[in-house]
Structure formats: structure tokens, C-alpha cells
């Protein structure tokens, strides 16, 4: 009899356990991706900490921008960004080798 009661108690626990599992959210609802997209805490070097507050703040900003922005910049814009920026083109233009024409007369 005692064995039967123990078995019933075990079954009840098992049923409760199964019921509990069935109430869990679907795996797709789990926030598992959050971990992978979490912004990493910027590593601030000792030098940056020891520098002035303004400098360390700016370096922190840069680090914070670099990570997420790199993923969200429109991929097409590298070409357009450069080729619509006159100053950048002036700065990065390869010097043209001037070839002196040896043609004589009208072509």
C-alpha cells in the first residue's frame, strides 16, 4: 500500500512537471539572439582613463559608434560617399602622369 502511495505521488510530480513544461514559451520566442547582438562593453584602456575626461569620453563615443554603425550603414554608400565628396576625391586622387602627345598636325 505504501509502495502504491509512493508511486501515485511520483506520478503526480511527473504530471506537474510535464504540465509545467507545456506552459513554457516556444523556442522561437526565447530571447536567445539578444545575447549575440548585445553591444559589447567598450574596453577602455588605462591610458584613456587616466587622460582628461573629455578625451576618454570621446574615445568611448567612437568605440560605441563603431560597433553598431558598421552593421547598419547602407552597404551601397561606400562608392557614393566617396564619389560625391569633392574634397575626398581631391585628397585621394592618384596623380595623373601627363603624356605629351607626339601627334603632328590635325587629326
Amino acid at each position, binding site marked *: 500500500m505504501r509502495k502504491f502511495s509512493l508511486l501515485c505521488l511520483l506520478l503526480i510530480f511527473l504530471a506537474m512537471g510535464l504540465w509545467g513544461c507545456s506552459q513554457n514559451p516556444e523556442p522561437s520566442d526565447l530571447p536567445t539572439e539578444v545575447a549575440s547582438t548585445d553591444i559589447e562593453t567598450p574596453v577602455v584602456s588605462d591610458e584613456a582613463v587616466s587622460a582628461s575626461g573629455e578625451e576618454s569620453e570621446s574615445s568611448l563615443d567612437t568605440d560605441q559608434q563603431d560597433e553598431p554603425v558598421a552593421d547598419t550603414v547602407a*552597404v*551601397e554608400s*561606400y*562608392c*557614393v560617399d*566617396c*564619389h*560625391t565628396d*569633392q574634397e575626398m*576625391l*581631391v585628397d*585621394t*586622387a*592618384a*596623380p*595623373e602622369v601627363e*603624356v*605629351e*602627345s*607626339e*601627334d*603632328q*598636325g*590635325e*587629326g
Partner: protein
Amino acid sequence: MAPLEPWEKVLVDGEAFLPDVHGQIPCEECHGGVQAADKESAHDGLLARPSDQSESVCGQCHPDVTVHAENSLHNNLQGYWTVLDARSGGTAHETLEVMFGNHCDSCHASCGDCHISQPASVGGGLISGHVVNREPSMTRNCTACHGSRVGNEYMGKHEDIKADVHFRQGRMTCVDCHSSREMHGYPQACDTCHTAPETGIIPPPDHRYDGVQSPSCESCHAAVTIANDDIEMHELHAGDLSCQVCHSMSYTSCDGCHVAVSETSGNPYFATEASYLGFYIGKNALKSFNRPYDYVTVRHVPVSSTSFEYYGEDLLPDFDVLPTWTYATPHNIQRNTPQTESCVNCHNNPDLFLTVDKVKPEEIKANLDVIVFDVPPSIIDLMRPPTIPEPTQSITTTEVITP
């Protein structure tokens, strides 16, 4: 036209180009390359002139145009080969191909050379910040290549010679006469219905003055064609003379172009012996149903029998099969010219005609069909009743044969 700075050649006008339909296409779709923040990586595998592969690039959206590209003279440069093959007699083709690659091939123009950039032969560079211009720029596209003759004549760059009336008064640009159908190499659709009576079926044109005139002066000046404009000379001379014979001013001819590769720089170059202004009326060696004229304006083309001697001896053994004074349509048309002032300015005036004394002795044979041996007589001589020569021999009769 001042050359563009290196940065200027590749500066994209973001405000004008990006909202345009072509600005919506990702750059690498046409230009290749890779998306990268640094210049070297981004330009890896870059196609600077994607329309050189017009069918696979422009043809993605404009297949109706690119399908005809192989017929476009701007694309295939067939005009060069028409004369090279004729004068070489089909021999030395491989040697001439080397010459062609060094000197002639740079004239090849693809879609972008007319609609986006200046032609490579004048240094390239975007014209309107990469905006794809429906109509090419007259000065930065058309006359950038066709400048030394057509451009200078049309825009009046020769001293004391006015610009063409179509430019001066009509402000017309090249594309007002030279349609996209012509530029893109579309077949001459008119011929499919309006076949010429003397042939019935018109073969494809084998030179640029073959087939239906396109463009033609008569397309706009129809009243002249039917002699319905009260100008007596149009009635008298229409059909005998090309329009340019009366309405053109002096134009450029060139002599003796020779090509070679520089021993110092290794670059190909050319040298022409002479370039001069003149006005010459010659016989029409290309007389046809569509060009029935007896007389046309002719200009000297720069070829000589030794033009390509750097590449080999006697590469043009059949030099004389084509004239060196060729049918020309100068682009400096005026309503009033010295020719229109008076009948005597042309009649019995050898100065205006390509007489044999104006042709180099070694080129006379090539130009026999063009040289004017008998200048049209004076009006007085024309009005004089013809004289009937006295018979000098006795008339003999044939015996009557009776059965």
C-alpha cells in the same frame, strides 16, 4: 575644351544623379568592384567603362537599343575597314589589324561615351556628374571627336568664315539632324517599304553615302525639292548639284597622314603633312538613285599610299580603287555664298572645280571619276545655238538587195 582634373572626372553629382532612375542601381551592378571603405579594395576588379560590354550592362534595361550596337559605326568602326580592305585588296589584314589597334581603335565609342562621359580619346571624365544624358552634349561628346573638320566648320571657328546657319540662327545641335536611329545603328527602316525603283531590293549600305540620305536637307526644306519656293536656281539645278555645291563655304582638307609608334615613349602617334581650307566641286563618283547629282563638294582625305609603311611595305597595293578626293557634306551651310551670287562665279570658273592641276600626279588615277576635266561653260556659250558641222565626207549608199 580644357582638360578635366583627375578628381573632376569622377565626381558624382549626388543631388542630380541619385534620384535619377540610373542612380537607384547599385554602383557595383554596372561597375563591378567590391564594397569596401578603403580605395584600393573598393576598386579591385572595377570596370571604369562598363558600357564597353553594352549588351550585358546597358542591355539589361535597353535591349532594344543594344541589339543594334554591332551595326553602329561608332561601335564597330566599320567605315575604317571598308576603305582599308578595299585599298589593301584584302591582303595584309593581320598587319593592318595591329595598326588599327594602335591608331584607329581609340575612336570606338560605347553608350557611356555619348550619354555619360567625355570620350576616352579626349581624356574621359563625367559630363553631368554621372547623370545619364538622353541627348549627348554637342561640344563635349560629338565635336570632342568630330572637331577638326565638322566641329570647327559648324561653329565657325575658321577666321572670316561664319558658323553654319543652322547653328548661328537655328541654334541646332548635332542630334537635331543626326537621330538616335542613325547613331544607334538601326536599320534604315524606310528602305523596307520605299525601295528604290532601279533595284527593287536595297542591299545594306556599304558606305556612308549609300542608301537613303539620312539626314537629308530635303527632310526640312521640302519646298526646294518640289521647286516651290520661287528660287529659279533650285528649279534649274535641283538634281544636278548637291545642296552643298551652292550653299557651302570653304572647309578643311588634309594630306598625307602617316602613323608610327614612337621610339622614345613607345606611344603610337600620327603626323599629317598638310591641313588647309578650300572649296572644291568635283564629279559625283557615287551617283545613285538617292544621290543623282552630277556635281558634289569633295574634300581630300588624309590617306596616302604610304600611310602605314611603318608597319610594312606596300600594305595598300590597291590604293587607286578609291578616290582620295571624296564626296563631302561640309557643315558650314549658308543661305548666301559666293556661288549663289552670280552664274559666272561657277560657270567657266575653274577655280571652284577640282581640275586635274589640283590633284597630285600620283593620285590622278585614283581620282579619274572625280576630277572635272571640262568645267561647265559660260552662260553665253550655253545660250549660243549649237553649230552643226559641215559634212566633210561623201555619203555612201547601201546597195539594195533584190531577190
